């Protein structure tokens, strides 16, 4: 564990533009938080299984049956930008 966080890298992954001011402020605040969560290092968790879901449940599935969906106009009425029956987005730059 470490108290440092590469804010710019993480913000890039999370697709959030940060101002220099935010980089500084969040960096300090999150470093502070990491210092607190680092308390977990004191717990011996080597032989402990991880809990992803705390209530025991397995194999929850649905049968393969068609259900009604949404009307296209309802769907596209929420689109920030549409063109015909499509959602429109700005130029995609290949990564």
């Amino acid at each position, binding site marked *: *564990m*470490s108290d440092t*966080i*590469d*804010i710019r*890298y*993480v*913000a890039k*992954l*999370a*697709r*959030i*533009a*940060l101002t220099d001011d*935010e980089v500084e402020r*969040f960096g300090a*605040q*999150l470093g*502070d*938080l*990491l210092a*607190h*969560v*680092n*308390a*977990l*290092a004191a*717990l011996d*968790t080597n032989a*402990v*299984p*991880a*809990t*992803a*879901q*705390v*209530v025991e*449940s397995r194999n*929850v*599935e*649905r049968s393969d049956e068609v259900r009604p969906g*949404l009307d296209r106009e*309802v*769907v596209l*009425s*929420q*689109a*920030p*930008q549409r063109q015909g029956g499509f*959602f429109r*987005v*700005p*130029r*995609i*730059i290949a990564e």
Partner: protein
Amino acid sequence: MGDLLERSAAEIARAVNAGTVAAAEIVEAALARVDAVDGRVGAYLTVLHDGARERAAAVDARIRAGARLPLAGVPLAVKDNMCVTGTRTTCGSKILEDWIAPYTATAVARLLDAGCVAIGKANLDEFAMGSSCENSALGVTRNPYDLSRVPGGSSGGSAAAVAAREAALGLGSDTGGSIREPGAFCNLIGFKPTYGRVSRYGLIAFASSLDQIGPLARTVEDAAIAFDAMAGYDPMDATSIDRPVEPAVPALRTDLKGLRIGLVREFDTAELGNELDAIYRRAYDELAGLGAEVVEVSLPTADYGLATYYLIAPAECSSNLSRFDGVRYGLRVEAADVQAMYEKTRAAGFGPEVKRRILIGTHALSSGYYDAYYVRAQKARTLIARDFEAAFAGCDLIACPAASTPAFQFNAKSDPYSMYMMDYYTIPMSLAGLPALSVPCGWVVPAGGTEPMPLGLQLSAPQFAEPLLLGAAHAYERATLYAGRHAPLTGLVKT
């Protein structure tokens, strides 16, 4: 008219079912109350005037047709992170400020089916991240007991609405204490059921493995009726649990004979100051006075709850909130290419607390840190759950404070970590998936304040023991009468 709104949800439903009052009358009264006080209280982001009247008329028609509904005509405040078809559903965020939900959350649908009438969509900390409602980007909600103080959070709008009788019942969601803490701050029953007991379908996710919907109510009976109406498997939510619901209403009781109530050795209320310490000690004595055997239990890893929670919840939230990208709905800030569009949209759409949590969560999941942070937190979660299992071998219920302070003033917690500490007592139960509630247990005039503010006692039970939990809370509420003290309306009405 005012009298109607002083009634509990159970009393309203009884009257409507008996035909002595129409749902339409109650809803008109509630809408009038909203018009009178919400300018000050700020509980609602959206008031559903027309929708509520239509719904009330429909309830009256069902009653006339012979239906008997457990929540007939009960005015409901719905936290604005739950979808209701055709209504704006904002999560208190600029990124969803104008989003109209095209479907209804299962829990809401079940309450509406039980006769509730949604009065409005209630304010919250943005995406339910916060403990004061101050993180809402769309409005300020004030505590009806003292307008200079916060209502708690994140379900602060629902709590304030119920406390100001702008609704008889509130729906909240609780991830680390977001129903229980505002319940305590607003002198209500704030009840979080077992994880998976109430469907999350239509609840806009903050942390999926922790989020749970529950009621905010002025009486335990109301909370129990709401729970019975909402609980149960939903095929639309794979994490909802497919097992029969034991109804809570028949389990409501008036004493605690034969119950062992555990006090947590590690939770020393002396740390909360003399006044609060005295009130909680009195509460424990009141439990014993009702016939409970008070025993000591230990939760040795509960102190790690906060650290565990502040890795797991942000990690899940960082992924859950990715979908707010300006492509299909919600805010978009235009840019030349899609990457820039994402970054600008999310920069403009999310507030600072949401950004902090997305960033820390992204960090905790990122390459090289995943095992050290996320996996370790999941293991700590196992230990915390095991602690409760061991504790419940020696008791039926656990009692402790719901929050470490009464409602505080606006801007009192400018440092994020001090705000996070508000959930110190509620987070361990969330991590273990347990049902837990806060029930009013006394009053204190905070330092620098003039008005007495309520305090909440937290009771928690093993998974799926909601009837036992609500039954015991009911006995405590009836014996102590703290919950009956409503916020005076005089100061809430604009003159």
